[in-house]
């Protein structure tokens, strides 16, 4: 099997890596790009632990061939912190204790970021619906939804100031 070259914009940087033709995006991002925050949970697109932001949309990277990342703009949790400043979502997840074991957290934060990037003032119901593709077995979700609501407020204030 011949490897293919993948060029992508990863967390704002231009990156290049070699992937096997059958490789999934989650495997390429973890093993070639070193993005260990992208977790493999179920491998069949049911749990959302592998959620990344792909061209502005939250997607399950376990269902995506690595080849599809070529030319794409990709965000992972590693890219949330900017200039040593945590993203409001990270601050809010910590403040609300929305993280217990932490395995699902990067996926939730990616999904939440994709939502807030497009819809800065979501209702609680919209947040709840948007996160329904991600499973958390520890928290019962309440703190996660609280955290996303809080982050959206902080981001709005930040944008206004």
């Amino acid at each position: 099997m011949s490897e293919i070259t993948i060029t992508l914009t990863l967390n704002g940087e231009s990156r290049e890596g070699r992937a096997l033709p059958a490789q999934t995006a989650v495997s390429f991002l973890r093993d070639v790009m070193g993005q260990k925050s992208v977790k493999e949970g179920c491998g069949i697109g049911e749990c959302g632990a592998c959620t990344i932001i792909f061209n502005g949309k939250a997607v399950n990277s376990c269902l995506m061939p690595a080849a599809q990342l070529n030319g794409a703009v990709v965000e992972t949790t590693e890219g949330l912190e900017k200039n040593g400043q945590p993203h409001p979502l990270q601050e809010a997840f910590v403040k609300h204790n929305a993280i217990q074991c932490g395995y699902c957290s990067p996926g939730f934060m990616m999904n939440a970021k994709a939502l807030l990037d497009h819809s800065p003032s979501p209702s609680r119901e919209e947040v709840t619906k948007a996160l329904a593709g991600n499973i958390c077995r520890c928290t019962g979700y309440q703190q996660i939804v609280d955290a996303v609501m809080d982050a959206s407020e902080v981001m709005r204030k930040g944008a206004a100031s």
Partner: protein
Amino acid sequence: MTDAKYIGKDLIHPRIWEKARGEALFAADLAPADCLVLKALRAGRHHAEIVSIDCAAAEKLPGVVRVFTAADIPGRNAMGIINKDHPVLAVGKVRSWGDAVALVAAETEEAAQAALRAIKVEWKELPAILDPREALAEGAAKIHAEGNLLYKRVVKRGDVDAAFAQAHHVVEKSYKTPFIEHCYMEPDAGFGYMSDDGVITIEVCTQNPHYDLGDVSAMMGLPEEKIRVIQAVTGGGFGGKLDISVQGYIALAVHHLKRPVRYFYNKEEAFLATCKRHPMWIDIKTAVDKDGKLLATKCRIIEDGGAYGSYGIAVATRAAVHATGPYDVPNTDIEALEVYTNNTFTGAMRGFGTPQIAFAYESQMDLHAQALGLDPVEIRFRNALRPGAILATGQQVEHSLGLPDCLEAVRPYYNEAVAKWAKETPSSPSRRRGVGVGAMWYGVGNTAAQNPSTAQIAIDTEGAVTVFTGCADIGQGSSLVLLQMAGEILGIHPDKLKLVSADTKFTTNAGASSASRQTYISGNAVCIATASMADMLLTRAVDRLKVAKDDLELHDFTVRQKSKPEHSISFAKLAQNLHHLGLPLTFSGFFDPVTTPLTPEDGQGVPYATYAFACQMAQVEVDVLTGEVDVKKVVAAHDVGRAISPINLAGQIAGGVAIGQGYALLEEFEMGTTESLKDYHLATTTDMPEVVPILVEAHEPSGPFGAKGIGEPSLIPTAPAIVNAIDMALGQRIYALPASLERVLEASKAAGHFDKFGG
């Protein structure tokens, strides 16, 4: 202690930021890309003799390094937390679908898979027994040589027959609960290597590294010094990471190959090869007098142990001991049978048998309340354990009995929900509203067995303080709680303390992160160690500051005079002084709650030193046409003894309610049907109710700062509360979990609601 600085405060977990940054390294993140891949060949049948295994073709495939079978295991080929009946690699026969027959080590995942396909096993099928009641029948095929009954626990006191004869009201019912998969988000994973000093080192997700160490060293026939288990960041467990998963395979391959290896289960393998919550068949008969006071409980429990024991013996005892519910019941006759079948083995799953039995005893309470026209909160209040009560085990309880307070906390919510919310128009005409309560009790720590924890705290000559604990934080937050306790005693913010945890090289045994025991038991061990260090520092400071000890206090790495705080000496100087004098810089603590074994014939003794209590209320809407149950709100009052970390407790409660709701409505593991997240349904954000946590503090005298535990109590009352609420909505009771769409619809039809809508 009312002026606590750190106890009862909402502090940040020491490792939460690395998780928020995506930097926390789970076992699958630690393994180098070029290490060998391990994969087990699973039986793929319920019960069969192995006539022969031929690995020659598999071993010749490109990229395949070695295929191991049972003959390659140098030591004891048996694992199991209580009884060692579970082969690491099968010998002679397999007893369940997920049994490992051979282990492949290969250069790549693909080569490993190819090798699995190339291993030739000749089988002779044996009759499969998938129902424990059949396994108990005369002449049933023997799953283990000793027979199919693994264990029988009897708890008996008083005279139930006389009590039933005199009773005002008797209810006799049968209940059934399903297999439950833990569904921790991180599939089991580990990697291992031979360290430079010849120690087999395993970094793995686990709830108990020191248990892993013992079983792996026995399996390898090596002294414990030759094995090191390091808990990697662990993505949940809920009891499913107490048994050995990949540890033994990794040790075996590292021992023979002297190369780094990894074994990551995929989700399906995690479903297939790890333990489940026990299904139970519960026949229960209870009686009350005219005031609703419980007189007797007679109960027979049959538990599907699956193919191997795991924690099954403890599950049987815990279910039996808790079968009365958190109530004063003078006459009891309880029997629990733990039975082998050819199903996936069952073991610990958040509650150790108590979620099952709570479903039964809390349904009974509502049946009595309905018959007597009593309010469900009131009947529980009248029966709640109070100081001086004697349990079914004969244990007299005196302290920290917080159920009445939990009930009082829930009562106004319940009254309001029944009086107002339940009478309002539901969100759709085909929906009916119901409100239910569930109560529970939970013995903290292992059942009728000593279960010590140990800890150390050390100060170095620069004054830095490090807590050492074997306790595995699997996301529940024990690391934070232990540091809060040490910080409180030392007058140091927990953020400024260092922590070394769950590494068998640097820490000593803390026992399992299970049985809701770490706050209580390891908390005590840490407090005892810390208190002796504090005492040593104060004593040295007397000499150095020329101030009496009772006028000294610890504050932010100094000892200072209370009446003149500027008169102080730093921890660093005191530690240098200790070192100079040859006094210890490291201090140890251990704690082992007082229990006694239970008598085999009637289960009398002291199974636990303390009990946690709770009451939850659920408000539900039931769609009579679809069977859908929409849980709107859960109020959860929990007696935790003392709230060390309220924010963490609230998290445990909300998470417990989610798992409890899944148990009530959604979840059921069936071999061959629900072996992945496609078919095994979990609640998501849109399914969850509003959860209102209420913390009740009935001080436990033997607890650290008065604390008990929360991990398991948080989910135990949820399913009973939901089932009782469904009963109120439909006027029809559900006797088998889960209350799935089909079962609820059936109940709706039986109650005539479905027909009323012309369905």
